[in-house]
């Protein structure tokens, strides 16, 4: 892609209630702004209950964003939980509906997820790049709680699209959990307090979240996933 053209990404995040999908989109979007980029996010709650599908949308761009509303034709799809695919816990079925040509699918899974032959076929037809990142595992290993899965996903996304920077994500995490309260639903507020209680101090919570995000970033960079747009597919480890 030539330097002249500004980069623009439309990210659709799908997960299940309680995973912090919306929080992740806040952190990612805010991180881009801190990086002097442009970003907007649209939280999209499913039915009120936990374990129900949740989607959130983030637009990331190097210049002004005019579009609003949910993203129907994303070029990045992020799957926070394999059940989104395996148990159809998704409002857009199949999960890659609307994915643009040469797009990216990031799946939270330690192992390569077995997709149906049709799904494999359709994904390769649209020359999609499918990356499996063990976000929950990283969260457990690094922070000792799977509730930090969303931060691992943020780290992976940022690494793959090349923005925002690690430092901006760290700053964004700080702002999310300490400074500038972002308005959240009652459920999310309750979840926050659960997470907080898991750590002695908020500072610790923030640090752990940062560590998780960075660990996932490293995981992605090691595998050259950031080269998906430029390098030939075989050079990018899936």
């Amino acid at each position, binding site marked *: 892609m030539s330097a002249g053209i500004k980069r623009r990404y439309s990210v659709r995040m799908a997960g299940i209630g309680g995973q912090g999908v919306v929080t992740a989109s806040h952190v990612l979007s805010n991180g881009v702004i801190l990086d002097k980029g442009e970003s907007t996010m649209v939280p*999209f709650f*499913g*039915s009120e209950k936990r374990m129900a599908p949740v989607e959130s949308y983030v637009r990331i761009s190097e210049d002004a964003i005019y579009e609003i509303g*949910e993203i*129907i034709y994303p070029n990045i799809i992020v799957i926070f939980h394999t059940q989104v695919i395996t148990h159809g816990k998704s*409002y*857009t079925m199949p999960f890659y509906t609307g994915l643009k040509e040469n797009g990216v699918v990031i799946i939270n899974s330690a192992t390569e997820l077995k997709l149906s032959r049709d799904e494999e076929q359709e994904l390769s037809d649209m020359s999609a790049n499918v990356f499996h990142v063990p976000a929950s595992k990283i969260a457990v290993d690094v922070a000792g709680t799977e509730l930090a899965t969303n931060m691992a996903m943020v780290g992976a996304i940022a690494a793959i699209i090349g923005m925002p920077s690690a430092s901006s994500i760290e700053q964004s995490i700080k702002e999310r959990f300490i400074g500038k309260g972002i308005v959240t639903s009652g459920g999310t507020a309750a979840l926050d307090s659960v997470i907080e209680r898991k750590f002695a101090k908020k500072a610790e919570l923030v640090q752990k979240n940062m560590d998780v995000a960075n660990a996932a970033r490293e995981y992605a960079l090691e595998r050259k996933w950031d080269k998906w747009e430029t390098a030939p597919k075989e050079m990018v480890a899936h």
Partner: protein
Amino acid sequence: MSEEVKENTETQPRNDDPRAHVISDPPPAKEEVKKEKTGAAAQRVVDPDYLILEAPRKKEFITGSEAAKESVRRANVDIAIAYPITPQSETMQQVGYLYAEGYIKDYYRGEEEIGVMSAVAGASRAGVRVLTATAGPGLMRGIEQIVSWPGGRLPSMLLVMCRVVNAPLAIQPDNIEISYLLNAGGIVLHGENQQDFYDYPLIGFMVGEKPEVTLPVAVAVDGFFVTHARGWVNMPAEDIKLPPRDCYHEAVPMMDNENPPIRISRDSPIQKSNFISYQMHAAWQQEIWAAQERAKKWLNRWLGGLIEVVNPGAKTMIVASGAAVSQSREAVRQATEKGLDVGLIKIKSIRPFPTQELNEALEHAEKIVVPEFNYVGWLAKEVKVAIDRTDRVIAGPRVFGGMTMPTELILETIAASK
């Protein structure tokens, strides 16, 4: 795609003839008369075609409110819900007398219009034929409910006696309130005179209850000019009435727990849960406007067309609805006497709007004058959207706030446009 149902006597008022849908009965036999039935019991259910188009009629000189009463008397209404507001009050009082005489099964005065329009929604969901009437500020107060009727697919009859809605408060005729109904999704008929105020409700009930339509109908007239003035009204005898509402042959299930599915939640909100739900809400709205389009077939049958054309082919055509039509008729007569080539199109149905009919009837017209009894000129806007060569349209003259419209005003406009 509702299923054919065996006649369910429990859902049929006792005194109704189950064969009614198909045939119009012979006059009652002598011994029947001896029983001295009164009210609805003395009436025969007849085929709508017969009651609306064929039954012999007699002329009477009555007010618009009385005309509405006579319409309701023959409409086989189950329940009427009233709330006073000038200039509507007389009509629902008259309907109350019908209840007292046994022509209507239930009647009460509601708390205010939000309550009344909500109760109309409840009654319609119960599968009965329901009627109410309001005017101006009352319509505004009930509008949240009224705009939700079409989405609920709730056949019902709303009579609207137009009056000023905006401050300073006034009771004078002014039909600006119709513009608030245009985007609701329901059927809106605009009557010119007492005769229309008799005919349109009967037609409205039958059209709104067709399975492929299943929509509420509003019949509007300009207050006072029509409601409180007397005019000639041609009506059939009192002893016939429309078939009852056939609620199991409509687009949605009744909320009576007698028809499936049991787990209806027919009105369950389309929650913000996914695109597909958005798609459902979108398709839902499309279906409402589609249903309106389907009503045209029946309106044409019973209304004799969505428009009436006087002097087809005239170079200058007046397009009007409601009381403005009467003024325009006179204008046409005087213009013709002066040797001017002026015609008139009366728009009877505002929703569905007669786009195609209008285009055909105005194909030849060089000038189109749209006189209205409101400040905003909603009819002129409708006409301009519907036709091409809109430079032909002269959006006026208009009077409002209760003024009447001198015929001269229309003639002057035509002259000035030369």
